[in-house]
């Protein structure tokens, strides 16, 4: 119990540190949003003080001491008030994030779970049949696919399946002629749009799970208790799953927990290639348009969700491996 309370305290402390870091980061960097806007304006001629004040007021550049800014910021974080987006004015940051989140959660979430389950099982098989073709094929293709840059796999699929053979839609999450909601035509259309991004993420993430599980299990296969179990004449499936795999799955489980936390951040590069309106694409747009309120809110949300996942994984670790509790 003490272990969990301590973890909880640490979690709260880390969350506070992350929130504070998100506050400090833009203030540590040279320049401000107003500076960037004024730099663009000054290309057309000199900018006077009144224009500057107007730009700063329009962009909501914070006034007052850093401490009072920090206090306001903490209040805004608690009430989820992240202000108004620069690029999508007058939409609020919260509404923009709210409309992007469902697409990312469904697409990236489902693919992450599928990749973990398939990859881990293949990894177990590969480690158990180490040195055979059953090992070489998945580990070689897995590591080759994992080495592909996400965006390049996405570009290739887009080029061949999207443009050359016209099998799937090339951009967006649904066609403009469908009405979003729980109706047949929309769902079918959304699935068709999700196929290419989903296949991209699955192909590129599968190798990591296979290799992770295989390498960890090869470590446990060298342990005495596995040799002992084999010498005892236990069925090989029992040895592989109950002895070797069970002790080797911890690192993969850690990675899975963190990957689930990362789902909220979406898959930026893939979403960018397919113009898929998820969180990653929103962040990309915020960055390229220097939309600071949107960028800051997204970055905070992505960081905090990974943080929560990390906390859950740490807690599970304590349950699964009592040795770490000491």
């Amino acid at each position, binding site marked *: 119990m003490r272990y969990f309370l301590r973890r909880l305290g640490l979690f709260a402390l880390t969350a506070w540190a992350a929130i504070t870091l998100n506050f400090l980061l833009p203030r540590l960097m040279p320049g401000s949003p107003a500076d960037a806007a004024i730099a663009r304006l000054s290309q057309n001629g000199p900018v006077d003080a009144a224009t500057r004040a107007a730009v700063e007021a329009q962009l909501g550049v914070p006034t007052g001491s850093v401490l009072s800014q920090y206090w306001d910021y903490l209040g805004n974080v608690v009430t989820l008030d992240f202000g108004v987006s620069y690029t999508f004015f007058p939409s609020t940051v919260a509404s923009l994030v709210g409309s992007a989140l469902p697409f990312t959660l469904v697409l990236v979430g489902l693919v992450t779970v599928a990749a973990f389950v398939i990859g881990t099982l293949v990894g177990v098989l590969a480690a158990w049949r180490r040195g055979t073709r059953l090992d070489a094929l998945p580990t070689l293709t897995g590591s080759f696919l994992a080495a592909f840059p996400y965006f390049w796999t996405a570009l290739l699929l887009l080029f061949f399946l999207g443009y050359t053979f016209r099998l799937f839609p090339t951009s967006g999450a649904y066609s403009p002629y469908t009405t979003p909601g729980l109706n047949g035509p929309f769902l079918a259309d959304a699935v068709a749009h999700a196929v290419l991004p989903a296949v991209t993420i699955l192909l590129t993430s599968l190798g990591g799970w296979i290799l992770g599980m295989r390498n960890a299990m090869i470590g446990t296969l060298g342990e005495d208790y596995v040799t002992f179990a084999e010498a005892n004449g236990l069925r090989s499936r029992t040895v592989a799953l109950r002895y070797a795999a069970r002790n080797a799955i911890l690192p993969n489980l850690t990675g899975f927990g963190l990957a689930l936390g990362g789902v909220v951040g979406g898959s930026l590069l893939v979403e960018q290639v397919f113009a898929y309106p998820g969180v990653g694409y929103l962040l990309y747009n915020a960055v390229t348009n220097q939309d600071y309120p949107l960028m800051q809110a997204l970055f905070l949300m992505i960081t905090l969700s*990974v943080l929560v996942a*990390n906390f859950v994984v740490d807690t599970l670790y304590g349950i699964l491996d009592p040795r770490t509790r000491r």
Partner: protein
Amino acid sequence: MTTPTTLPDPGGSESEHPAGAPDAAPPDLPTAAPPRWRVVTRGAGTVWANRKARLGLLVLAFFVLVAVLAPVIAPYGPTANDFARGAGPSAAHPFGTTAAGEDVLSQVVFGARISLLVGFVAGALSTLVAVLVGLSWGYVRGPLAEVVNFVTNLFLVIPGLPLMIVIAAYLQNSGLDMIIFVVVLTGWAWGARVLRSQTQSLRGRDFVTAAQFSGERSWRVVFREILPNMTSIIASSFFGAATAAIIAESGLSFLGLGDTTQVSWGTMLFWAQNSNALLTGQWVLLLAPGLCIALLATSLSLVNFGVDGLSNPRLREGSGR
């Protein structure tokens, strides 16, 4: 080798041997220890004996050679742009030309330099940090471990790509050193965490307890007793970090957040997408840079397979002969 000396003794034993005291030399060291160069060549031989690793080393050597000899191999300069625009493959330009009239083959050849540089520098730096942090963090108990835990968690929770592009957005103009810096900043924590878990499970082993009771100092227990057992994990975390750095660099360049005037495989894809190479069907321009990134990254992963056998002889390929 300076920080570990400050580690508290985890066993709580009071006996601190003064440095250089005669009895500090453990009597149970193998007397006929092979010279260091023999250990290195034997390790290299172990990796080379693995067929996958040999393939990886050959591919890696090929790219290193291309990068070093780039001015000799490339038919033109990487930024020479006085050729026909967007031309298909021909005798003069085997890979065709870009929409800006540059020779694609020359750009691919020179692009190897950036990827290798970023991969090896960022990979080595983040592995160094990961080893120092991970091993001491896994070995010590008490408040110091909690502080390290806190700092590492903070770095772990910050997702790499979003952090990189957010910093790039704030800085507006990021060069290669900035990319390396951010890759190391976000990359070391993973390795540190893996090494810490392994250290935690090793620190309770009998040989560690024996080393502690024989009065070895903490840094020696950590770096001479525990570290050699993790050679393969450290080596694989280096190759993993280098792969991640190469892919991160290409991703940032592809998004146009790096220096877009510098010729790297990532910026080639950035310009390819921006000049609609997808629509005009210039598939070589699309295929070549990405394939190079993938091949280089794969060669590093392949070397990793040979590394498995370093610390566990039973995993060596063909050791059953």
